[in-house]
């Protein structure tokens, strides 16, 4: 009987032994929990890096938000198989469009990341974390939040303004959509906060003081505050660190050219897949969309396009957009702010302020760089039209065209989109279902 008992106890042994290693206690190895996320300088810096990474998402500056800006207008047309992109091309969006909901949600997750930093960074207890670093990180977060709300406002109109980070699903209850004016006011407030926190250095991949000025100039352009638009444009134009490059292709071929104010950098491990939607199958892409015939002839016409013809490439008889082309290395930048835009903002602001010669001077700076002849329109009307056309070519594949035509209320005349309800995107149906505080844009 002794052996029997011995073996019994041997068999029962694992019970006790294994309980002590406790199969029920596991910690995630790929993630950290909320309370580990913000403890010192390194984790605060990581959170900011993550917020920039959110800007790069496919649904945001990585592709789809930019595509919303060009597909709805007349520079780029849909030629692929995803009919949710076709809806943009045809200006026939429905509220269940997955690209619309993807972009909406990607922008708000960027905002939540920024909100964490804004709320927490100043109180991080780490002796190695200097006040100036804390200020810089918080300032960059304010800038990113400003950019995110600006992008929401110009695409959807007024949106819910969430200024604190999310703790539970009940947060934000009762916060409905603000008006467009309130949303732009929030953008301005965030930019002003950022101005006081950010250093005056040149870094083309992160937010600095002059990045804030540049976005502020664009904001004033959208809100038609011409004097401020001109003033803030000037602040950037006059800065030594930013110049128009010669020829146009320089800023495409070289990353972080002096032309660039803010571009999102990618690398082999953190790849930009935007090119795959422009390139044809023979170059590894899917040609989901391509430049319109009209755009192709405009950029190829030396009188209008000049040396901007590099925007269109050709392979095996297929013409394609060639701004994003680094399919092998995957490190095409996403262009957010370039100095050329600031010239054209100031040109437009000056035209509205009836400084026609100053306006023409700025316009011609961009034209000269592109290798086309200077022009000197005699009326404000002609000048504004010339600026509109110049912007069309200068930013042909950069997602400005649609927002420009909506901003100037020209989308009906130029694109034939006469239904003004179609000038803003629908609030995603899925979010309308999930959020009782949301109200759909009219017409959807």
């Amino acid at each position, binding site marked *: 009987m002794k052996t029997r008992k011995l073996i019994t106890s041997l068999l029962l042994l694992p019970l006790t032994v294994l309980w002590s290693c406790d199969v029920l206690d596991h910690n995630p190895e790929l993630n950290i929990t909320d309370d580990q996320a913000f403890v010192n300088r390194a984790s605060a810096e990581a959170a900011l890096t993550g917020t920039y990474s959110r800007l790069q998402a496919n649904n945001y500056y990585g592709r789809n938000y930019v595509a919303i800006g060009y597909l709805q207008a007349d520079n780029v047309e849909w030629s692929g198989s995803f009919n949710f992109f076709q809806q943009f091309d045809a200006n026939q969006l429905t509220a269940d469009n997955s690209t619309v909901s993807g972009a909406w949600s990607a922008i708000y997750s960027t905002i*939540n990341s920024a909100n964490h930093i804004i709320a927490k960074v100043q109180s991080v207890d780490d002796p190695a974390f200097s006040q100036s670093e804390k200020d810089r990180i918080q300032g960059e977060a304010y800038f990113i939040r400003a950019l995110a709300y600006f992008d929401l406002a110009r695409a959807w109109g007024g949106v819910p303004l969430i200024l604190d980070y999310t703790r539970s699903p009940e947060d934000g209850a009762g916060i409905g959509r603000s008006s467009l004016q309130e949303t732009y006011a929030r953008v301005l407030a965030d930019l002003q906060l950022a101005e006081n926190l950010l250093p005056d250095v040149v870094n083309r991949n992160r937010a600095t003081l002059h990045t804030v000025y540049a976005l502020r100039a664009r904001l004033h352009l959208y809100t038609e505050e011409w004097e401020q638009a001109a003033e803030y444009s000037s602040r950037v134009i006059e800065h030594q660190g930013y110049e128009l490059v010669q020829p146009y292709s320089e800023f495409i071929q070289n990353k972080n050219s002096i032309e660039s104010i803010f571009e999102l950098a990618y690398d082999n491990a953190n790849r930009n897949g935007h090119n795959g939607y422009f390139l044809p*199958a023979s170059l590894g892409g899917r040609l989901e969309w391509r430049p319109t015939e009209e755009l192709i002839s405009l950029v190829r016409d030396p009188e209008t396009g000049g040396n901007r013809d590099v925007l269109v490439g050709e392979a095996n008889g297929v013409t394609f957009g060639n701004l994003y082309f680094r399919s092998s290395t995957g490190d095409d930048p996403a262009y957010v702010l370039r100095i050329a835009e600031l010239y054209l903002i100031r040109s437009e602001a000056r035209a509205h302020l009836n400084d026609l010669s100053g306006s023409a001077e700025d316009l011609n700076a961009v034209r000269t760089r592109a290798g086309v002849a200077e022009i000197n329109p005699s009326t404000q009307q002609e000048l504004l039209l010339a600026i509109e056309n110049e912007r069309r070519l200068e930013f042909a594949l950069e997602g400005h065209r649609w927002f420009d035509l909506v901003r100037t209320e020209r989308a009906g005349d130029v694109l034939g989109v006469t239904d003004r309800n179609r000038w803003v995107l629908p609030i995603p149906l*899925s979010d309308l279902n999930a959020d009782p505080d949301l109200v759909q844009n009219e017409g959807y």
Partner: protein
Amino acid sequence: MYKIISFILFLIFHPTTSFATNNEQSRQVTGTVTDSREGFGLPGVNVSIPGTSSGTVTDHDGFFELTVPEETVVLRFSYIGYQTKELTVTDQTTLTVELSEDLQRLSEIVVTGYTTQRRETLTSSISSISADQIPDIPAASADQLLQGLASGVQVSSSSGAPGGGIFVSVRGSTSINAGNDPLYIVDGVPISNTQTSSLALGGQVVNPLADLNPSDIESIDILKDANATAIYGARGANGVVVITTRRGQPNTPSLVRFGTSVAYSWAPNKFEVVTGDQDAMLQNEVHINNGGSFESRPFRPVSEGGRGLPEDQPTYDRISDLFQVAPSRNYELSVAGGSENTRYFIGGDLSDQEGIVKPASFGRFSGRFNFDHIVNDFLSIGTSTTVSRTTRNISRSNDTAQGVINSAIFVPAYQPIFNEDGSYAKYGIFDNHLALINERDRYNVTGLRLISNVYAELEILPGLSLRSNWSVDYGDNLDETYNSTQLVSGQPQGVANTTNTRNYSWINEQILTWRTNIGENHNLTGIIGNTLQEISFERSSLTGRNFPGDDFRRIASSSLQTGSSSGTKSGLASFFTNWNYIYKDRYIFDVNFRADASSRFGADNRWGYFPAAGIAWRISQEEFLRNVDFINELKLSANIGITGNQSGINDFASLGLWSGGNNYLEAPGTTPVQMGNPNLRWETTTQWDVGLDLAVLNERLGLELNVYSKYTEGLLLNVPVPNKLGFDFITQNEGEMSNRGIEFSLNSTNISSTRFQWTTSFNIARNVNIIERLPSPITRHSRDWIRMEEGYSMYSFWVYRQLEVDPQTGDAIYEDVNGDGQITVADRQIAGNALPDFFGGINNRFSYLGFDLGVLFNFEYGNKVYNLNRFFMEHGGIYSGSITFLPGQLDRWQQPGDITDIPRMTTQGNNYTLPSDRNLEDASFLRLRSLSLGYTLPLNVVQSIGLQSLRVYFQGTNLWTLTRYSGLDPEVNSADSISNVRGIDQAVVPNPRTVQFGVNLSF
């Protein structure tokens, strides 16, 4: 009350008292009690010495040991349903006792998880399939073999690709987010059937159950209701499939079995597209209908600047390049036998299968070792171990433009296959199909799987035994790809990837089993046990880009390399017990209870409790029916219980998490990725089942009827949260779902003479699934084809309903649900779903002298399929020039008065842009699943050549299908990789039609 308590006390102490009467002049007798006809061990047989209180019961293999006095004794073996036998034992110490069935009752032993039971004494619903019922279908995996054989078990193969995904559903789907696959137990080891390959295959999956060699299988028992599955607690809600593999029998000489077969498969139907001139003609029509002028139509004479007239367009056939008559071959070899104390089974198989669509293939090389040994009079040990290696060459298809089928069927036929310089021509988003077939010789998945269980069983007291199981399930999967520069995905200089995935789980179990009989009338079995399990997942992957040339395929030769690795772990700890009491072989009571704790949930919600109870009344055992010869068995049973589900959520779903890897400027970044929910807990399903078993006419006719209802609460759900919070969803226990159904099966011996036998088995089941509560609808798949919404069933299609094509204008008229005069998303509605109204199978088997013939049909009725091939290829012109047309497009409206449901060709309006129900089709089918004809040579002939048996056979699979579905195969699903999407057909490999010739012999 006193009587009950004293009775319970008696039960508990009865074996102990008998043990205590042992005196010094005693000896041990051990032995096995088996069924005289089938030879299997009988569990729970009462072994006693008449006139004394000494006695014991046999364990689940029929083994017993008993201490008896030195002198000659008489042993009595009694077992309900069998004739009692008495044996005089003089000086033997080991016995083999065969018991014969009483009243010619066929006693089937059913594996009920941790124990075995006779079928008549079940209180729950379990379908059993033995090896000889399984047709010799050349299937790669065991789950596919169940098709049409078990009532209430729906099996569909999602693709005809070898080793591809199989959909198995036991009594409907209970979960939206968590998985709906049943739990698979192989020889006591709960095995993983999660996807191990990381390859993006356009929606296809790789079936992990193909790691098991189907010919090793002895029987498959499918536990369907809560009373049967509650013993598996937290993982029992979707049913449990218990697979038992072959073992040796004691005191049997070695038997060598060898089988080989060769098979040829081909596609029963092939894709068809319009010819080059038809495509051109349709494109011209689009141009005119869009308001374009006749002079500027795209296909006008070259002299006028066009692409040539339609009738001048060539037609290049791509589709024939895709398909092949695919050979496959299979060898299996096993040896089984046993001595008094040792039993063994050693087996292996080698099989190769090629795909009917090039260039896919599947191969398996597996071995199995099952071994049991009685060490001494109280200890036995054993193992069930299998190792297998699978190799797959996979071609992408389904939902990817770089798939081989897509590249052949979507490209307009007038486009040449090669460029003028001889290189592969590519169009639009599509690759070149020949390049995919010829240049992708490295798209391999290699799997290595080890499933092993080692046990020791100890008889502590007579009737009381303790078993300890130690098991591992180890799966290693290596994906290796090289995309050459000839392919779109290999641009610009070649892309290679290697991904290694490792699933590892260990399980330790202790099970205490107690069997006792008190007198002739009381029969009690109880088990108590615990389980610990830890599951880990590791993956590392490497990508290399830019190769010096296509001859270099290893990442080491590339210039740009990136790598990553990830992993996760979870644990499960459980206690369980099961008590089964039988009174007079008439009244049966069953109680089950399991407590499970999972590391996936917060500490406060870690434990889940899963009770179940069942009763059965064998009316045929009552005096008033005993003498009715007509009725052999009549049993009513009822049970109720609770089971759970925790699969499908990630291992840390309850925590608020930040994720790394969100990098920028080559610096590591973190972002919030998941909102925490400390209240997260199991899904729980409450289920009741009522069953009737009837056998009449000397067992010639048997039928079984079950009615059940399952109600799942606290569905693990990714509940959408307002996006303004920066998250899309939070995992919560929200929502409820019900499944109600009825299952009927019938087994009939139509003719049974010595020369000719004919049996029929038939089963049919109906399950009604309803999402009873869901906070907001959830959509799935790229264009939201599938929508889950309160009040509807799972797998519902969300579409615009096309009422007609206006005979005057040729435009589609859609139903304006809200009557606002325009067609908006508010008019999109649910129209049908992918679940069948009923399904089942009918199996006829004939034998005449040495010939046997088996005919198995299976059917599904009322299931819908959304034909995405039609959605994309009857596009009315919106993809003109980049995607061609199906011949169905030719039925379009052309002139006023035309009555058709294919609208006018145009890119304007919404004729072709809306996801409409035009392409939603009834996919009901009746299929001749298998037809087999075999001949077993007469015994004297085979013995003269030194064999024990020899059978040659022919087997045909999928020889005939009756369906109105217009696609190639009504059974497929192209979106297997997206959870809870069914019934989508897009460029899928159809299930092959196969003829097979084989030989089985033994000696």
